[in-house]
């Protein structure tokens, strides 16, 4: 049958990748679809940093890093296919850059013993390492982000948001819904009123939501958007004449491409960021050893922008964890379970970031068996019409609100799935 021969042909092609001593970092990227604008720079940064390590240091601990790219188009089924097809190459850690794909992969990767690093996205309660043994979401998660925004607003309003209204404009998916619980808690605590405005995938249709904002004039609009939704929202805010200073995005709603189309009109728009921007020495090295050498993943034009920096930061955290794993186990060619140990023992200090040529790119934090979530700190940045400028230092979230929520949600997951405590004895 035609079908069977086709199957046979593909199986012959799938099989047979030579096993070499290298460290495999799969990159589940998306360079197509409605979210490509965010996926491309992140993936470029992620891959270029490993290319830099290979070119400059000969890899990590003397072993070459190999990035296997797989296109998911932000689609969960394609993401699962990518996971299955790259897993057997000796994948060390997955970074899906999609909350939907993360939810699919959490049980699978845990069963396979491969760690997931979902930096600032994915399942928030995975910060509880006692339940989620193979999922890491350091340095910060969505609930931290929600709390950081509220903390910043509290500071601007002399410690009280009593009687204010905050509208949450969110992508109507698992990603966008994540902060709602926290914001509801915070709204009860600080006395502000929370309005929820959902925007359906992919996010171009926002007319109704902005009509409501125009009518109700909330004091602040907080946006949980991604992809094309951000650009549309910023343009709508300009059309509505909403004061841009009071329009605040989370860290996935504050990249260069989100505001560049609106340009100077969007000046004043603020967003969170978990990584600092600026002219770091590492960029010069990437320019020289990767881009000028033609080893870059993309076209090289994204170097240094918000999401490129974040991708590079993610790669740095992965590389540091791999080095830590090599140190713990005394082997250069580590496997996924060793990588997990390395991630759990990760300790990022300012001195180390300075040494790597990216001073202060992220907060200082350390990971433990119980805490996979990092410090949860983030900065606030502002678009001045031509570039992003850093407004604040790292702001801490209110752990007294987030910790019980994490404990509650992860406990529910643990009972649903019969997971026992991972950190109890040791």
């Amino acid at each position, binding site marked *: 049958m035609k079908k069977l021969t*086709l199957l046979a042909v*593909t199986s012959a092609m799938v099989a047979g990748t030579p096993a070499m001593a290298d460290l495999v970092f799969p990159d589940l990227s998306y360079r197509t679809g409605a979210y490509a604008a965010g996926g491309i720079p992140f993936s470029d940064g992620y891959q270029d940093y490993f290319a830099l390590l290979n070119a400059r240091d000969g890899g990590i601990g003397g072993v070459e890093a190999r990035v296997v790219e*797989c296109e998911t188009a932000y689609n969960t089924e394609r993401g699962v296919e990518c996971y*299955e097809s790259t897993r057997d190459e000796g994948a060390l850690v997955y970074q899906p850059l999609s909350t939907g794909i993360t*939810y699919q992969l959490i049980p699978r990767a845990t069963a396979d013993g491969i760690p997931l690093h979902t930096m600032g996205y994915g399942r928030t309660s995975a910060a509880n390492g006692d339940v989620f043994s193979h999922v890491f979401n350091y340095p910060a998660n969505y609930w931290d982000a929600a709390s950081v925004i509220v903390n910043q607003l509290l500071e601007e309003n002399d410690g009280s948001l009593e009687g204010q209204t905050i509208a949450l404009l969110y992508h109507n998916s*698992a990603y966008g819904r994540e902060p709602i619980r926290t914001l509801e808690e915070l709204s009860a605590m600080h006395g502000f009123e929370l309005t929820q405005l959902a925007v359906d*995938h992919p996010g171009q249709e926002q007319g109704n939501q902005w009509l409501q904002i125009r009518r109700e004039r909330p004091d602040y609009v907080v946006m949980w958007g991604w992809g094309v939704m951000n650009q549309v929202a910023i343009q709508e805010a300009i059309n509505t004449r909403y004061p841009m200073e009071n329009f605040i995005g989370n860290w996935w709603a504050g990249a260069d491409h989100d505001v560049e189309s609106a340009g100077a009109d969007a000046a004043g728009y603020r967003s969170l960021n978990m990584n600092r921007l600026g002219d770091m020495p590492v960029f010069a090295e990437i320019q020289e050893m990767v881009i000028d050498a033609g080893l870059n993943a993309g076209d090289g034009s994204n170097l240094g922008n918000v999401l490129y920096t974040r991708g590079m930061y993610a790669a740095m955290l992965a590389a540091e964890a791999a080095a830590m794993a090599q140190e713990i186990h005394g082997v250069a060619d580590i496997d996924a379970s060793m990588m997990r140990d390395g991630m759990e023992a990760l300790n990022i200090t300012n001195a180390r970031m300075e040494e790597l040529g990216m001073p202060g790119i992220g907060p200082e934090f350390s990971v433990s068996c119980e805490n996979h979530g990092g410090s949860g700190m983030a900065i606030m940045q502002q678009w001045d019409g031509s570039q992003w400028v850093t407004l604040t230092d790292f702001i801490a979230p209110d752990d007294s609100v987030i910790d019980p929520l994490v404990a509650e949600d992860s406990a529910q997951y643990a009972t*649903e799935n019969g997971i026992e405590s991972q950190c109890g004895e040791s």
Partner: protein
Amino acid sequence: MFYREAGDFKTSYSEDSQTFPILFDRYRYYFVLVVGALVIPFVLNDYWANSILIPFLIYAIAAIGLNILTGYCGQVSLGTGGFMAVGAYTSYKLMTAFPGLDMISVTLLSGVMTAMVGVAFGLPSLRIKGFYLAVATLAAQFFLVWLFNKVPWFYNYSASGQISAPERDFFYFINVPVTGPNAESWAKYLFCFLFVFVLAWVARNLTRGSVGRQWMAIRDMDIAAEIIGVNPLKAKLTAFAVSSFYVGIAGALLFTVYLGAAEVGEAYGITKSFLVLFMIIIGGLGSIFGSFAGAAFMVLLPVVLKVLLVDTFGMDTALSAHFQFVIVGGLIMFFLIVEPHGLARLWALAKEKLRLWPFPH
């Protein structure tokens, strides 16, 4: 030559009207069944199971379901994704509310629930036809997705609105998990294979019997069908019920066995409706084999393209993803223009030629 009918005598009416009248076809069918049920489970690896065979089997069920409605009964539907979501959410609610329930019962009950919802949305088909019905079913698609997003009861009030499948067994005395992360590939595969086999067999016989003849009469000319005594109410609503039953089972399996976790807008959005529609267009309207061919084609194409373009030719992943759109789009146009009956018709033509070979007319 390949289809030698000499010596293959039929001595009764039932033999004459069997599904595979040619001996060779029959043997090939048994061969595929034996390989599918007894060989593949033993040689299956995770990649093949999770990336190719399980999605193929699940989409084959969905394609058969849509083919019953659109291909056999002529009622155009764009609500497939929404009905699949009904199956998925029913099975989620059943799995979490009744932890002791086995997966066969859960899946069948999900199908029954979807059949009821499908009949409700099929009611307008008595008044409206063709393009207008397509829009009505499109409304069902958007309404159902909106509903599952809007009402937290459906996703058990979880923070993110995701549903995830807990571990459940095959059948009440077969204690092999088919859902959850610890389910073995062969168990998941066999579970889907069982459903595909039974459902395809039932569908084939339904479409050959009086119910199927009524559907086809309605499809070909509904007024004439009514004059010769076909009850349009009964014919259309049974088509909606049976079709939704199949689609619901496919949606349930997609969530429980294949994905393990799902988000309604992403997993069961309008693109899913189009995907299944493309399957039956490319595979062949009004053909059970066409449903399989179309599902295999649409599941395999991205994988083949990826292997061919990215792994073999070293092409950029983004470029190959764009190529896929071009190729699928081109093929849909090709089939609509050149062979509206799809791969199944091409296959049937090839068989006709082989029966006459080497003496064509």
